[in-house]
Every structure is written in structure tokens, then in C-alpha cells.
């Protein structure tokens, strides 16, 4: 298996990074391009950008953000939120993103997964699942569906998802650790890689998630101290998780 991955997630609204990024060393904490570069230099293995507004008028803004990020970033990145059609995926990927993440749109039209995978390969398609009480939630957790989490993960993978981004609604934002049982259940049910998300509060939390999942999504733990990312990596490695060696961080 490839090495475990640490993936900071940036929420973007109207082309700006939102949600608590605190750092004095950045000229502009809201600039997705500058922050992306900072995280990349600090040891992110990959990045996720989530367009949390994703109104039609924002799509052009997001496309130009993606292009600017692609021009400065030498690590892969995924863009989610607002990908509702093959055309949206084409627009995002042709602008330089490596992968798109589908959430509510994939549930509404599961054919979308295969359509994008056929064009760009399945490694370009992430299906994000927000899970709670055994069922899938959509629209940022506001809508509770009757779709069961595990069968949906299996279906998404069989339709062409190259990775499952699994967020536990009950653990997200609490910073008390990941939902390890849910992560293990999804990992065991699918043969594609799984990104654990929701609940990272410490290096120990991330390390225990990475013993189960292929990657861990991190948000507030890194946004409240972006300069602490190299230290977080080191702590995770000291807990026995092998991350990619980075000569420039030693």
C-alpha cells in the first residue's frame, strides 16, 4: 500500500477560504492560493477544496481559483462542492484539479460517478459520504436520507468512485477522535482507498485513523495553527505511522 496521507481541507466561499484559519505569518489568510502553497510546503500530501456556497454564480470564481492553485501547487488536489454534472467536472479538472469530489449530486444521480470515471479514470472521482446513524446525510448534513451508509459506499465504488471520503456527522467538529468503527466498516466493505474525516483533535487521533484508513482529512487542527503542520506530521510518524519522507522538512 502507498504511504498514509494527510489531507488538509479548505472550505471556500465566494473564492475565499473561510472557517477559522488563524495565522499571522500569512499576508492574506483568506487567499486559497497562498494557503494551499503554505500547506504544501508544510507537508500536506494532498489538499481538498470544498466550495461551500457553490451557487451558479460562484462556479466561475471557483474555476479561476482552481486554475491559480494548479499553477502554484506541486501536490495533488481535489475539488468538491458544486460538482453536479459531467460539465462541472470537466470545467474543474481541465482547470487543473486532479480529482473532483461528488456528494449530494452522486446520490441524486449515481450515473454521474461512472460518467466522470469513464472520461478521466476512476482515480479522478472521489465520492464523499456524510454519514450518521447508519444513513447518508446530504446538503452539509442538513438532510437525512434513507440510504444506508455501507451499501451506498459499495455502490459508489462499483460505479467508478476511486476513493471514498467518509465523514462522520456525529464526530465532525468535536475534535474527540474519528469514528473508527464506521471507518473500519466502510474500509472492509470496499476495495478502493478510504479517507477518514471528522474528529481530528490530536496527532494520536489522526494516527489511529490512519491505522484503518488510507488517508485522513484534517481541518481545524491545522487551520488554527498552519505553521504546526510539520510538527503534527512528526508526531504522527513518532506514533508509528509512515508518511512520505520530506527532506525539506528535516
Amino acid at each position: 500500500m502507498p504511504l498514509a496521507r494527510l489531507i488538509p481541507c479548505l472550505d471556500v466561499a465566494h473564492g475565499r477560504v473561510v472557517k477559522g484559519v488563524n495565522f499571522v505569518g500569512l499576508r492574506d489568510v483568506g487567499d486559497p492560493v497562498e494557503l494551499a502553497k503554505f500547506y504544501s510546503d508544510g507537508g500536506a500530501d494532498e489538499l481538498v477544496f470544498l466550495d461551500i456556497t457553490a451557487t451558479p454564480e460562484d462556479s466561475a470564481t471557483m474555476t479561476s481559483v482552481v486554475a491559480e492553485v494548479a499553477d502554484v501547487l506541486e501536490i495533488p488536489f481535489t475539488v468538491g462542492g458544486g460538482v453536479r454534472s459531467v460539465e462541472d467536472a470537466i470545467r474543474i479538472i481541465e482547470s487543473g484539479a486532479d480529482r473532483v469530489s461528488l456528494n449530494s449530486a452522486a446520490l441524486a444521480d449515481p450515473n454521474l460517478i461512472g460518467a466522470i470515471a469513464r472520461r478521466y479514470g476512476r482515480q479522478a472521482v472521489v465520492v464523499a459520504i456524510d454519514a450518521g446513524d447508519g444513513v447518508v446525510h446530504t446538503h452539509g448534513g442538513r438532510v437525512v436520507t434513507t440510504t444506508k451508509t455501507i451499501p451506498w459506499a459499495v455502490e459508489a465504488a462499483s460505479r467508478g468512485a476511486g476513493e471514498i471520503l467518509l465523514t462522520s456527522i456525529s464526530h465532525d467538529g468535536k475534535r474527540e477522535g474519528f469514528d473508527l468503527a464506521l471507518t473500519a466498516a466502510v474500509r472492509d466493505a470496499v476495495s478502493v482507498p478510504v479517507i477518514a474525516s471528522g474528529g481530528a483533535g490530536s496527532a494520536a487521533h489522526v494516527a489511529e485513523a490512519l491505522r484503518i484508513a488510507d488517508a485522513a482529512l484534517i481541518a481545524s487542527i491545522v487551520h488554527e495553527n498552519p505553521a504546526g503542520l510539520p510538527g503534527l506530521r512528526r508526531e504522527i510518524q513518532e506514533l508509528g505511522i509512515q508518511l512520505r519522507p520530506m527532506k525539506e522538512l528535516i
Partner: protein
Amino acid sequence: MSDVVVVDYGAGNTRSVRAALTHLGVTSVVSSDPTMIADGELVILPGVGSARSAMDHLESTGADQALRDRFATGSPILGICLGMQLALDHSDEDGGVDGIGLLRGSVHLITEGRVPRLGWAIVEPWGDAYYFAHSYAATCPHSVATSEGVTVAVERGAFLGVQFHPEKSGSAGLAFLERCLSPV
């Protein structure tokens, strides 16, 4: 004469490859024109998309023959990911597709571990970690590097192909590209 020619076949991530070249101070053009492919100092065949649509596109523009002709003259070509796989004889992808055939070898679905094989992995004997994103892997007598038992670099004559994405592999990837550019 033009610097570096990044071959366009409709779905490749030419933007990221060009951004990495720009970072290294190298100008590049994106083209599928046979004359450009013949004349470039270095030709890069990037990789994203499916084997069938990529080969269809290369054949429709004559880029496939231009790459064979270029290879025969000993001018350097770098294949990345799908670009490496397309240089071999055959791929199992999309029900079976004949490649450009610069090197003997074929491409098969990965059957071990999680597929797609996604993420950073150490390449031996080079020692650095690079970023991978692939469901198919090469079997090739011209293998020069492996990662977790998978052939990840092939070399024959003026062709060097890598399964990883140097343009997405941080400083290790940039250093790799710089080595590829050094004879240019």
C-alpha cells in the same frame, strides 16, 4: 525549434505539467502537431484519461507516428502515467487497446491492494517518494525502477516513462523533472 512540447490528447493534465516546467524556468507549448513533436527539444506525453480515447486522439492527429519517428531518431521523450503505458505494445484497459509500441510490454489491471493505487510511495532504487494514481500497471522488460513490486519506470533508448506524476510529487518530482531536462 521549440523548448518542451507537451503532447495534447484531449484529456491530459497539461496544465499541471506546464506549471511545473514554468516553476523550473522552462517554457513549453501544448500541441499534437507532428511537426512540433519532431522538432521539440524534449517531448512530454502526459497522463490522465483512458487508454482508448487517448490512442484515438493520438492517431487522429498523427501524433502516434510522429512519436515513433522521433523515437527512431533518438530524440528524448518522457511519458508520464498513462503516457508511459501508451508507449508500450498493448493495454488491457477499455477492453484492450494497442499502444504506440516504442517498448515491448503490456499493461494490466492491478490485482493487489486497494485499487486505484493512490498516494505517495517510495521508488526503488531512487529512494524518493512520488505520487501515484493508477489502476493499471505495466509489465515490461525495460523496467528500471519499481515501487511495492510494481514497475514504475521504463527506459529504452531516448524514451523514459514513469508511472508516477512528477508534476504532483512536490520537490522530489521537480528534481526528477530537472534531471530529465538537464540534457536539453
